[in-house]
C-alpha cells in the first residue's frame, strides 16, 4: 500500500485501528485534531513530522502539555499493530483516505471544512467520490410513490451518467442504488453500517469489482450500525452531491428529518423534497422549511433530470470555502 507518511500519522492519531473499545489513550476526535492541524500549519510542519517522536520531542515541537504529549506518543507508537490491521483490510479490498491525501474528496473540505472526517475507509472506485450526481435520502419504509421515485431517480442517474449517492442502507437507499447500477450507472454508498459486511453482499461486490460502486465510511470498517453513526454520516451524503432528493421523511424525528433540516440550514446544495398528494407529513414540513418541490411522477423525460434540477434550484448556496488544512 502506498500510504504517504502524512496519512500514516493521521491514521495513527485519529483512527481506532489497533485500539481496543475503551483504550487508555483515545484517538483524536475532530475537535482534538483541528487545533493540532492548525498548529502544525502555523509552524510549517506536516503531520509526518510527528512520526517516531517521543514525548519530550512532541512537547518541544508542539508546545503542548506532558499529558497531551503522552497521548500522542502512545497513539503514534502503535504502527506495528496498525500495519497488521491495514494489511488485513487491504486484503479484504478496503483502503484508507485521510485529509492529508490528495485524493480526499474536495467537496468535504469545501463544504464541511473542519467537520470533514479525518479518515475515510472505502472499497471500490474512489474517483467516484464527488463526481456530479444526486443524493437520494429517505426512511427505510416507503410508500408506493416513494419506491417509484427512488427507482426513477436511480435509473435516471444511471442512464445520464450521474453518480447516485445514498446511505447504502435498506429501503430507499438500496432501491435507488440498485436502479442506478442495473442501468449501467455508478453509485456511492456512504455507510453507517459495517463496511466489511457490506462488501460481502454479492451485488455490491460485483459492482465494486466492475468499478461502478464505491462504498465509504468514516467509521471503523467493522463497526456495526448505530443510531449515532447514522446521524453523523447523513451530512456526508449531502455534501458529496450536487442535488439532494428527500423521498420520504418523518415529521420532526428520525435520521432523515435531522439530516434534511441540517442540509437546508447549511445550504450545501439544493434540497428537493418529493411532493405528491399522499406524501408523509415530514415532506410537507420540509417544503415549508424551504425544501424544493420534486414532483411525482416526474413531468419530463428522465434524461432531463439534471437540467430540470438545475432550472428549479433557486435557493442560495453557501460559498464553498477552500480549506488547505489536512
Amino acid at each position, binding site marked *: 500500500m502506498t500510504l504517504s507518511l502524512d496519512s500514516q500519522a493521521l491514521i495513527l492519531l485519529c483512527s481506532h485501528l489497533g485500539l*481496543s473499545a475503551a483504550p487508555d489513550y483515545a484517538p483524536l476526535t475532530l475537535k482534538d485534531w483541528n487545533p493540532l492541524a492548525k498548529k502544525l500549519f502555523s509552524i510549517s510542519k506536516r503531520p509526518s513530522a510527528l512520526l517516531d517522536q517521543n514525548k519530550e520531542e512532541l512537547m518541544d515541537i508542539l508546545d503542548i502539555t506532558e499529558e497531551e504529549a503522552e497521548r500522542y506518543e502512545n497513539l503514534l507508537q502503535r504502527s*506495528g*499493530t496498525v500495519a497488521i490491521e491495514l494489511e*488485513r483490510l487491504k486484503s479484504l479490498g478496503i483502503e484508507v483516505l485521510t485529509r492529508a491525501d490528495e485524493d480526499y474528496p474536495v467537496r468535504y473540505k469545501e463544504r464541511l471544512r473542519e467537520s470533514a472526517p479525518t479518515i475515510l475507509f472505502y472499497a471500490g472506485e474512489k474517483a467516484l467520490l464527488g463526481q456530479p450526481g444526486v443524493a437520494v435520502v429517505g426512511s427505510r419504509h416507503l410508500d408506493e410513490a416513494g419506491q417509484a421515485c427512488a427507482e426513477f431517480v436511480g435509473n435516471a442517474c444511471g442512464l445520464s451518467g450521474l453518480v447516485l449517492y445514498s446511505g447504502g442502507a435498506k429501503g430507499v437507499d438500496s432501491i435507488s442504488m440498485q436502479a442506478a447500477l442495473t442501468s449501467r450507472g455508478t453509485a456511492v454508498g456512504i455507510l453507517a453500517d459495517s463496511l466489511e459486511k457490506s*462488501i460481502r453482499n*454479492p451485488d455490491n461486490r460485483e459492482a465494486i469489482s466492475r468499478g461502478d460502486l464505491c462504498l465509504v465510511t468514516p467509521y471503523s470498517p467493522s463497526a456495526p450500525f448505530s443510531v449515532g453513526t447514522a446521524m453523523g454520516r447523513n451530512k456526508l451524503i449531502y455534501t458529496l452531491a450536487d442535488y439532494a432528493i428527500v423521498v420520504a421523511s418523518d415529521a420532526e424525528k428520525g435520521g432523515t428529518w435531522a439530516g434534511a433540516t441540517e442540509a437546508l440550514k447549511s445550504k450545501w446544495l439544493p434540497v428537493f423534497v418529493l411532493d405528491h398528494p399522499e406524501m408523509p407529513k415530514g415532506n410537507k414540513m420540509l417544503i415549508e422549511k424551504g425544501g424544493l418541490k420534486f414532483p411525482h411522477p416526474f413531468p419530463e423525460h428522465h434524461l432531463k433530470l439534471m437540467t430540470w434540477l438545475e432550472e428549479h434550484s433557486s435557493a442560495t448556496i453557501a460559498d464553498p470555502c477552500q480549506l488547505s488544512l489536512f
Partner: protein
Amino acid sequence: MNKDHTLKLLRKMIGEDKDFRPGQWEAVETVAIKKQRALVVQRTGWGKSLVYFLATKLLREKGSGPTLLISPLLSLMRNQIEMAGRIGIRAFTINSANKTEWAGIEEALAKNECDIMLISPERLNNEHFLKEILPKISGRIGLFVVDEAHCISDWGHDFRPDYRRIIRILQMLPKGVPVLGTTATANDRVVKDVQTQLGPGLSVHRGPLTRESLRLQNIRLSNQCERLAWLAENLPKFKGSGIIYCLTVADTERVTGWLKKKGFSVEAYHAGNDGNMDRSALEQAFLSNETKILVATVALGMGFDKPDIDFVIHFQRPGSVVAYYQQVGRAGRAVEKSYGILLSGIEDDQIQNYFIESAFPSLQVFQDILRVLEQSEGLSLYEILAKVNTSRSMAEKALKLLEVDGAVGQTYDKKVLYFRTPNAWRPDIERINRVQDLRRSELMQMQDYVDHKGCLMQFLLSALDDPNPAPCGRCANCVGRGLPAQVDQKMVDEAECFLKSDQIIIQPRIRWPFGLFPDLKRNIPLEYQNDNGRSLCYYGDAGWGNLVRSGKYQDNHFCDELVNASVHLIRDIWQPDPFPTWVTAIPSTRHPNLVPDFARRLAASLQIPFYPVIHRIQEAPEQKMMQNSSMQSRNVINTIRIDQKISNGPVFLVDDIIDSGWTLTMAGYLLKKQGSGQVYPFTLAQATNRNANG
C-alpha cells in the same frame, strides 16, 4: 557497557561459563541498540532464540513494547520459553489449542506484563486476534521477529503462502521498528531475495553450517525388503538413539512394524490422518531415551532439539539438499560421533514427483472455488467441498493462496466462513511454475548427492552456499569405509515375508459426508456400518503391490499368487469372527469381470459360495477422479444397486483397490439394508497417495 550487561543476561540464561557465540552480540546490537533490521542465518542449535530473547530484554528495559514473534513452529518452543524465564522474560503464545488461557493472556497484555508474544503466521489474519488481543498490546510492538525467514523468499526451500502477508506488513512498518528474521538455512539467492523484500537496510549475520561430529554415508538399496533387512542388520551397531526418516505415513508404520517385530525399541511419528497420535508424548519418550528410535515423517520437524542423537537414517531420499541437511543435522549436536546414513530406493522419485505435482491446486480448483463463493455471502469449507470437486487438502491450499492474494476473506459466524472479496484475482501461474521448477532442480541436486564420489559434507555445504566448504575427512567417501552396503539374503526373505503379511486395516466410515443426505443424520447407524476390513498391500508397493498394478492395468487378470496370498491373510492372520459364509464383489463397468473373477476364485479357495449381487447401473467416472467425500459418495450412490434377496450370513465384500472407502461404505450399507450379516471389506490394495504427505 551494553555488551557486558547483555553477557550477564546470557550467562543467567544458559550458564555462568558460557560466552557469546560469534555473531550473537552483533545481531542483538543491530536490533536492540541500533533499532535496525537484521537477518540471522545460523544452523539449528547455534542459539538464534538467545538473540531475540536478549534483544527483547534490552528493548523492554528501555521501555519498548513487547516483541511479536511469528513462527510456524510454536509447539516446539517450550524449552526456549523456559530458558527465557530465567532473565525474567514472560512469554505467551496464542493458538487455537489454548483458548482457555486467552483471557489471562489478554489481562497480562493489558498490564504490560507480556514481554514476548508468539504467534503462527495464520494468526495475523484472525479476526479475534486482531480485534481483541492485538489492541491490548498497549498499542505498540517493540520488535518483530520472523522465524523461518527463508519463507519470505519464493526461492526458499519451503513455501508458506502466509509469508506474503508478513512481507506486506513489514513493508508498511516505519523505519523505527526493528525487525529480526531468523533461519537455519538460506543460500545466497534466498538471502538476496529477503534483502530485496525487506529493504536495503537489512544486515545479514551468517555463520558456518558444518557439523563437526557428523559422519555421512550414502547406500543404494533399491528394493524395500533389502532396506528393511539392512536396518535390522545394522541398527544394533549404533549405541545411542536415532531417527529414521520416511517419506510417507504408510512407510513409517511399516518400518516401525518390522523393527518392532525384530525387537527394537521403536515408535512411529507422523501427522497422519487418524489424529490420535500423541506426538508430544512420543517426543518426551524419545527425549528421555525411553524410546530409542523414532520412525518419522517430516512432521518431526525443525526446532525439535534432542542433543544426544547418534544417528539419522533416511529410509527414502528427501526432496532437497536443504531438507536433507536439516534432518540429518539433528544428529550429533552434543555427541562426539554421529552418523547420517542415506538409503535410497526405486520408489523415491515417484513419491517426490507426486509431492511436487500435488503441491499446488490446479487452476480449475481455484476457479471453481471462486465461482461458488461469488454466488454467496460466505460458505464454510464443507459447503465449498459439496460443490467443488477437489480433495479437502487441495481446497484448503487453494483457499489459503486465494486469501493471501486478497481474493478471499475469512470471517467467523459460529463456524469459519469464506467469502469473495471485491479484489480482482489473476492466477499467478508464473509463480507456481517457478516454485515447481525450483523443486525439480532441488530434486536433481539430491540425485547428484546420492551418486557423489567426493566429500559428502562438502557437497552439502557448497549446495547451501556455506562461506568455506572444505572436505570433512569424516564421511564414508573421505575415509573410504563405512557401514556395509550388502545384506544377508535370509534377512531379505524374512523382510519380504513381513511385507507380504503386513496387515493393512480398512477402518469403516462412521459418518456420511456433509451435504449428501440433508434429511438424514450424518452418522451412519451402527447396524449399517461395515466391520473392520483388510487390504492385502499398498498399491504399487514392493510386496504384492506391483502384482496388483500389473493385474489391473496390463493383464486384466489378478494372478493366483494374489488369490493365495489373500487366502493366507484371511485364514491365517486376520481370522475374522464370525467367519463369513459367502463372498460378493463390486463390479466395474469398465472391467466387468476383473474383480468378480478374482472374488470367485477367492471364494472357491475359502470354500464358501460367491454371489454377485451388486450391480452397476451406469458408467461412473472412476472413483479416483472424484476428489472429496461428498463427490465420491454421490458418485457411488447413483451407480450401485442390489435388487435381489440375499443371504443373511456374514459376507466378504471384495474390491480391487480402496481409495476413498465410499464405495465399500455404500455397498455395505446396501447389503445390510437388504438383510445380510456382518460386512467385512477386503481389497487387494490400498491407494496411498492420499496420506502420503503427513
